[in-house]
């Protein structure tokens, strides 16, 4: 792993640590609040965007250049837990609403952010 990527990964790790993860509420007899009900919808919207990103040739090129196996990345994305998606969504919430992930923050940023989420060492094919 080159030092630029290490530094970037470190920056993203810091950002994500600053984002407070919220856990699903313990079961209470109470109205299901709207944000919680939206979680599933937003999760599938996020997953769809991530998968579309990974399917792009330029993203795959970028991943290969960074020494990452795109297939392994896709598998790991598919296995993102709700908590991981929520953390990612929290971060994306600070970006302009209504803009697709790709439009706003660019292909490379998506790749790097996903790397941070999935644990960088898991999907590098070379060090």
């Amino acid at each position, binding site marked *: 792993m080159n030092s630029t990527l290490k530094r970037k990964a470190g920056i993203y790790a810091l950002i994500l640590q600053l984002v407070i993860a919220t856990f699903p509420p313990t079961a209470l*007899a109470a*109205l299901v609040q*709207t944000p919680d*009900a939206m979680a599933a919808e937003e999760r599938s919207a996020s997953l769809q965007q991530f998968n579309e990103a990974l399917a792009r040739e330029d993203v795959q090129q970028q991943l290969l250049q960074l020494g990452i196996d795109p297939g392994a990345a896709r598998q790991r994305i598919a296995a993102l837990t709700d908590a991981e998606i929520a953390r990612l969504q929290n971060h994306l919430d600070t970006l*302009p609403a*209504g803009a697709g992930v790709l439009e706003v923050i660019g292909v490379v940023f998506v790749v790097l952010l996903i790397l941070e989420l999935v644990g960088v060492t898991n999907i590098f094919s070379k060090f």
Partner: protein
Amino acid sequence: MRAMGVVMALVLGGCTGTGPVLSPHLPHGDRGTTVELRDTPFFAQTDYQCGPAALATLLQDTGSNVTPADLAPEVYLPARQGSLQLELIAATRRHGRLPYVIKPRLSALLEELRAGRPVLVLQNLGLRRLPAWHYAVAIGYLPDSDEIILRSGTTRRKLMAAARFLRTWENAEGWGLLVLRPGDLPSQVDPLAYIRAAADLESVGQTRAASQAYAATTVRWPDNATAWLGLGNTRYHLGELEYAEHSYRQALRADPGHLAAHNNLAMLLAERGCYPAALDTLDHALEISRPDDALRGTLLETRREILRDRSESDTSAGPDCTLVLPGIPGPAASD
């Protein structure tokens, strides 16, 4: 985030051509028409406080009475000598308006102006490496001279060459904010983003405003169950129980598998004293749910509590539970 700045340049950059900037982003039949929202208020900024001045401009434009002096303690950070975008968004909500960040596209900005909505824009009037952040309000454009019209700083009517505006705006990641009366939708609107914005209003206690926002979404997207759920929840919290029940039923019409709507409808039915109907609703929801559904726990707990309430209640004189609430006048004409 330096990386973000770099990729933003990649995504949005490349606007160094010498041709007109505005007209390619204007509709074909409309490329000569000027737009100027002359009635937009103006507050001259003091010191570094362009954030409060710009936000007060937009809030007053939507009928609020707030002034920059009111906003400064809310959004101005003396240590930073400026305001953060998130502070402006939070302040917008506190004043009962819905903040909506537009797509970072010139065409989106121009379209909102055409629709009569001024846009609070962040500009970097300095260099990428040495930024000079500035908030201004875009109120129009002049295609013939290729200029953007702004309320900016101490200038009521500032004309900026569109090429320069675009550069300064892109260097601020194309950040533009609409301040909307609840119930007003942007011209270019993503349903999930708008509903999320309504939910954010709801979660900071702006229940009436959130309710109006949800109501608008159910008119525009009547098959969106989440919008109906939000409408139901806000009406419930406002004490409008019949309206709330109607909304939950609409959510189930839009999505018969919506577990949260089942749960919340069951709770309302139980409050009315219609225990069998409440329990039927929950049982049906549990039946159609998957074993790993996150809401199963909530459904089961709601069921337990309803059984408890029933056993403690006087069931001798119950309400007429065969009555499905008649069509209540509301935003949706159907039902």
